[in-house]
C-alpha cells in the first residue's frame, strides 16, 4: 500500500527549496548506487525499487537505514553523523524538521551531505536476489547490477505484450509465444484465468493442483507428473539386466532386490566388459578408417601425378629415369617436385660454372707462363742477333778497309795488328760505318 505522504507531496508542502537544492547533489554523488536509486523520489520508481530487494546475506546493522530498516538506498549523512536513505530522511524531515535519531534540529540542505563513497561501495556490493525471484529467476547479484539485470536480461521481467492491441504485460521469456492474454480454464479447478497465468497457477496456486500418486500414494503437483514418474517407487520398470536377456518387470523399489537375485546377474559384468570391448572396437575401426584415408590421400598426391605427367618433362631434361623415380617418392605435390628438380639443376649449373672459371684461370696461367718463356727467348735471340750484326759489320768494315788499302797500294796489315788498327781507326769508323750502313745495309 502506498503511504499517503510520498516524498514529493511532503516536499511540496513544507520544504520545496531545500529539497530541490539537495536533490542535484544527490543525483551527482549517488551515481554509484545501483543506478538511479540514489536520486530518491521519482527516479527510483523506474525499474527496481532497491528497498524491496531481498538480500542474500544478513546486512550489517551499520548499513541499515534506521527509518526503513533495509539497507540504505542513496545514503545521506547528517552533521550529527547519522546516516539515512535520502528518501526516508526527506519524508521524515517533512513531518518534523529534526534528525530522526537524536531529534536535534536539522536543516536538510546545509546539514546533510551524501554519505562517504566507502559506504556507497559497501552497499553496492551487497548481494541481492533478483526481484523476479517469485517468478523463477534465482540469480544472486551485486545490488549495483540488479537494475541492469532486470531491465535488460532477466527472462522473468514483465514486459509489454507483443500483441499491439493488448495492454497486458508478459514475462520476457514468453514474448516469442505471442499474446497469451486470453481466457482459459484450469483443467483441475475449473477456474478461469489468462493463459499467461496458467502455468504459475497450476504450479503454485490451484487448489486441486496436487494429486496423490495412484501407485505410491505420495502427493505431487499434477504439472510435474512426468518428473514424479521418473522417481516413483511403484512404477513398473524392467530389470537392469534386461539388455542381457532378463524379461522380468517389477516396481522400482523391488528392482533393487531383484537385481541381486536376477539369474542374469552373472552375465552382467561379462556383458559390461563386452560392451566396453565393443566400444573400443568401434573406436579402433574408426581410427583404421582414418589411417586408410590418409594413405590414399598421400598416394594420390605424391605418387600417381608425376607418373602420368612429369616423366616426359623429366626425360626432356634428360635425367636418368631411375633416379627421378627414387627422388619423386617423398614429394607431396607436382609443383614441389618440379621445384626440387629446378633446385638440383640450379646447383649443378653453379658447380659447372665454378669449374669453368677454374679451368679458365688455369689456362690463362699456363699461357702466361709459356709466353713469358717465349719472350725471354726472344730477347735472348734479339741480343744475339745484335751481337752477330755487330760482328758482321766489323767484318764488313774490315773488308772494306782492306779493299780500300789494297786499292791505295797500302800493304795489308798483319792479323796481329788488326786489333790495334781497329782501335786507332775507331774514332773514324763509326761515322763512316754509319754512312756505309746507310748505303749498304747488311744482309742477314
Amino acid at each position, binding site marked *: *500500500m502506498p503511504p499517503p505522504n510520498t516524498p514529493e507531496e511532503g516536499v511540496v508542502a513544507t520544504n520545496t527549496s531545500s529539497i530541490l537544492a539537495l536533490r542535484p547533489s544527490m543525483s551527482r554523488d549517488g551515481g554509484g548506487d545501483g543506478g538511479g536509486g540514489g536520486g530518491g523520489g521519482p527516479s527510483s520508481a523506474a525499474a527496481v525499487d532497491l528497498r524491496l530487494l531481498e538480500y542474500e546475506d544478513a546486512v550489517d546493522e551499520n548499513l541499515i537505514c534506521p*527509518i526503513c530498516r533495509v539497507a540504505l538506498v542513496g545514503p545521506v549523512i547528517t552533521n550529527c553523523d547519522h546516516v539515512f536513505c535520502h528518501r*526516508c530522511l526527506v519524508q521524515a524531515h517533512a513531518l518534523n524538521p529534526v534528525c530522526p535519531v537524536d531529534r536535534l534540529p536539522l536543516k536538510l540542505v546545509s546539514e546533510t551531505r551524501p554519505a562517504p563513497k566507502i559506504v556507497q561501495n559497501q552497499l553496492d556490493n551487497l548481494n541481492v536476489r533478483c526481484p523476479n525471484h517469485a517468478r523463477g529467476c534465482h540469480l544472486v547479484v551485486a545490488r549495483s547490477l540488479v537494475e541492469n539485470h532486470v531491465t535488460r536480461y532477466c527472462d522473468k521481467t514483465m514486459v509489454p505484450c507483443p500483441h499491439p492491441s493488448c495492454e497486458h504485460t508478459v514475462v520476457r521469456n514468453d514474448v516469442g509465444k505471442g499474446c497469451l492474454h486470453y481466457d482459459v480454464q484450469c483443467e483441475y479447478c475449473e477456474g478461469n484465468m489468462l493463459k499467461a497465468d496458467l502455468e504459475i497457477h497450476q504450479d503454485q496456486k490451484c487448489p486441486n493442483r496436487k494429486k496423490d500418486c495412484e501407485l505410491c500414494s505420495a502427493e505431487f503437483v499434477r504439472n510435474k507428473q512426468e518428473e514424479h514418474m521418473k522417481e516413483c517407487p511403484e512404477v513398473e520398470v524392467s530389470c537392469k539386466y534386461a539388455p542381457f536377456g532378463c524379461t522380468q518387470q517389477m516396481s522400482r523399489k523391488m528392482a533393487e532386490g531383484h537385481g541381486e537375485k536376477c539369474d542374469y546377474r552373472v552375465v552382467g559384468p561379462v556383458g559390461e566388459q563386452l560392451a566396453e570391448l565393443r566400444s573400443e572396437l568401434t573406436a579402433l575401426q574408426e581410427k583404421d578408417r582414418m589411417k586408410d584415408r590418409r594413405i590414399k590421400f598421400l598416394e594420390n598426391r605424391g605418387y600417381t601425378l608425376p607418373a602420368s605427367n612429369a616423366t616426359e618433362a623429366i626425360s626432356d631434361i634428360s635425367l636418368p629415369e631411375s633416379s627421378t623415380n627414387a627422388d619423386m617418392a617423398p614429394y607431396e605435390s607436382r609443383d614441389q617436385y618440379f621445384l626440387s628438380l629446378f633446385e638440383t639443376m640450379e646447383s649443378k649449373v653453379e658447380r659447372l660454372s665454378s669449374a669453368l672459371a677454374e679451368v679458365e684461370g688455369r689456362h690463362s696461367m699456363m699461357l702466361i707462363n709459356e709466353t713469358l718463356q717465349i719472350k725471354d727467348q726472344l730477347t735472348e735471340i734479339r741480343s744475339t742477333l745484335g751481337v752477330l750484326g755487330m760482328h758482321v759489320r766489323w767484318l764488313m768494315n774490315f773488308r772494306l778497309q782492306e779493299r780500300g788499302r789494297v786499292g791505295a797500294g797500302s800493304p795489308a796489315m798483319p792479323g796481329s795488328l788488326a786489333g790495334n788498327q781497329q782501335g786507332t781507326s775507331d774514332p773514324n769508323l763509326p761515322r763512316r760505318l754509319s754512312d756505309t750502313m746507310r748505303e749498304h745495309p747488311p744482309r742477314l
Partner: protein
Amino acid sequence: MSAAKRIGKELAECEAAPPQGMKITYNESDLHRWNITLAGPADTVYAGGTFHITMVLPPDYPFKAPIVNFTTRLYHPNVTNDTLGNICLSILKPENWKPASRIKGVLEAVRHLLIEPNPDDPLETRIAEEYKNNRAEYDKNAKQYVDRYAKGDAKK
C-alpha cells in the same frame, strides 16, 4: 510498500525475540494491526494478570508513531481508566516520536510502564495522586482491577 517492508522486518524481529512476557498475534491480511498479550511483570501489583494490547501502525509508519492501547482495563496512572485504555508514553507523543524508534522498543517501554509508573506525567491524575501519596491504597485497587479484568479468560 516500504512501510510494509519495514513492518514485516520488525514483525520478524519481534517474533524471533519477543519482548519479555509478550506474545504477538496478527492477521496476515493486515500487518498494521498487532494484538499483543502481556503477562504482568513479576514483583509488581500487575503480576499474574494477562493484559491485551492492540497496536495500530499508521499507514505512514514509521514517520508517524504507532497507536498503542490497552484493551484490558487496568489501574494505572498513565493509562486511561476506561475501555479505550489510552496510554501516555513519552516516546509515542508526536513531538517525541522519531522514525528510528522501533516497535520492540515501544513494547518494552509499555511493559516498563507497568513496572515503574510515571506519576509526574499522568493521564489519570487521581490515580497518580494516589500512587504518590497513598501507595497501599493504589496497590490494593490495582490488584483488584487485575483480579477483575485480567485474570483467566480476560476479555479482549
